[in-house]
């Protein structure tokens, strides 16, 4: 016999997710945010990334979350989106 059960999920429509931005392939002089999530030694990794990006002619903007345990605040996300062409979020440990 067919069994009817109720959907335990939030019934999100997967098709309505946000579209991804176009990739930055081959673009010079992009402004790239480096987001430090505030884990130990994340800055070491980001310092190296910044050096490599600048060598390639990109502008770099260093940003940081207040704490690694919580999502980046909406204001910070908006600021990055408005000021930069791309963001690299650094994990650490």
């Amino acid at each position, binding site marked *: *016999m*067919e*069994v*009817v*059960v*109720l*959907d*335990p*999920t*939030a*019934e*999100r429509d997967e098709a309505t997710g946000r579209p991804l931005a176009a990739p930055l392939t081959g673009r010079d002089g992009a402004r790239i945010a480096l987001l430090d999530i505030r884990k130990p030694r994340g800055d070491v990794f980001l310092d190296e990334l910044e050096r490599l990006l600048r060598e390639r002619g990109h502008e770099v903007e260093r940003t940081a979350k207040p*704490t*690694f*345990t*919580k*999502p980046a605040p909406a204001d910070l996300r908006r600021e990055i989106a408005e000021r930069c062409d791309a963001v690299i979020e650094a994990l650490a*440990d």
Partner: protein
Amino acid sequence: MRQRGVDRKKAAVGELEAPPTLAADGTCLQRDDCAVQAAGLEIDTRLVERHFDDGDPAGSEDEDLGTAVRLAERRGPQAAGQCIGVLLQDVADRGAGVAPAADVQPLEYGVDLSSKRMIGHRDAIVRWRRVRRAVEVIALVKHDCETCATLAPALEAAAAAGAPVRMVSQSSEADTRAFAQRVGLSATPEVDDDLVLSERFDPDAVPAVLLLDGGVERDRVEGLHRARLEALFETAGATLPRDGLPDLKPGCASITREPEVAARIAARRARADGRIRARELRIGELEDVFEALHERGLTDGLPVVPPTPERVVAMLEHTARDPQEVVGVVPPYGGEATVEKVAINAVMAGCAGPELPIVLAAVHASCREQFALHGLIATTHPAGPLVVVSGPHALEAGMNAGGNALGQGNRANSTIGRALQLTVRNVGGGRPGVEDRAAHGQPGKVGAAFAERLEDSPFAGLAQDRGVPAEETGVTVLAAEAPRILVDQLARDPDGLCASLALALESIAHPKQRLAWDGLVVLGPEHGRIFREAGWDRARVRDELFALTTSPAGELVRGAGGSPEGVEARFVTDPEMPVAKFAAPERILLAHAGGDAGLFSMVYGSWAAGEIGSAPVSESVEPWR
């Protein structure tokens, strides 16, 4: 009343043109497109009254709007008025057996229709309802009821003699057919499809013989009570053959009283009322429901109770909250956990109904910003939400605060935390290995909950210490790793016991890591007794533990003792400087639970604590009952 109506009718009809005539079956002959079966129509007084009360058209069009009105209107208002006038006259003329409801004043409306309100306003006219007969006897029976078997032949005989009686079976078509053969009926009674009539009249017992007047119940007899049945049939203008009928024979329980059927009806009603709105997932006949739920990614790896509408509606009986109320927005994807969605996940977790308010409170507390559930789900750390329940409702819900309280074997303890975690998974979308990046996890992430043993605790409950009113039950959610035991079988005084507990607390996460973690000590009753008998309250124990979990900076610095972990050297100016393990005494939580025997306590470490991470949240269960 009736006499007044007739007088008005005469006056009203006098204002009409010559009324159309009716055939014997009630067909309006004068207008060939006025195909009205007068005998099949009666006034819906409720709609009429509503209309005339507020002066607005009553509701939207529906099938109840009489064919007479629709067709006759095409010929102009006068034709409609005539047609309606005839129908009203017919209703009035047919005597008691087909009288409209006692409070209907048909001719008054007839006058209105023909002379005042009707022109140009089709919706402003009397609505009509098609019924089989104005007065009707419905007899609900079921196949395995011997009293029904006794009464059924008499009902059929009454119908054959012209009584307006319908025998309607609560049983399946096949069972009803077999019943008809067994008791010698010439025809198989109709079946109450989807038990619509049974639900509507909701009898305790069958046979249930109902006298309906225009669909409105005027009388009923449940069971076989011959004298009362005869009176009921007499009111309907008919006779019940009495041959072979006993004076009295109790009926059988209506099929709607069977728990499974009652649950099905309750679920149907909840859907119709909008109390449950979740999408229905249909699991095919050839699928195993348990496997299907795994395959759809809806479980934690253990079997779940299939959340049928019936089970969910029964679960929702255990809270007074609106099922569509949002309890919390669950990370990481921000799914709205309505009371209904939490109830669905509670059913899946295996909760019994009385656990639901605790689960709702736990979900609500977990979704508070300071709990940082998003990070807790996403972290590589093994912590998960632990639910500590303090207060009388814990025991009412069957929770265990005694022996093995942190272990298996108690339904409520095992399922409350699981319901929270299934809500996180299904509503929030946090899945292990995908959004949940735990390196190891720990068994408590299936779900962890226990109740506090308050009757002989040295302190008030944990939730009560954290602001829940003393007489209420509270939950405390804590981002906790797996517990470990602290054995001290030699402790006899509070100072010595605190020294031992401090050693265990120091080891949370790493003995050299400081200020980043909270601790929860679950005192076993034999340890708790030491504090109780010494008269130490919570604050004193906490202060003592805070003082004892302080170490010299030189022992904590990175590299000390050969261990790379620890405090950065730049922060250590004086190796003798004491550095606390915890940010404040209040960051050491104390609870009391466990079995009578065993000089043990259990110690939980937290995930990254306080403002930089997750803070424990305590809330009352009462608003969720």
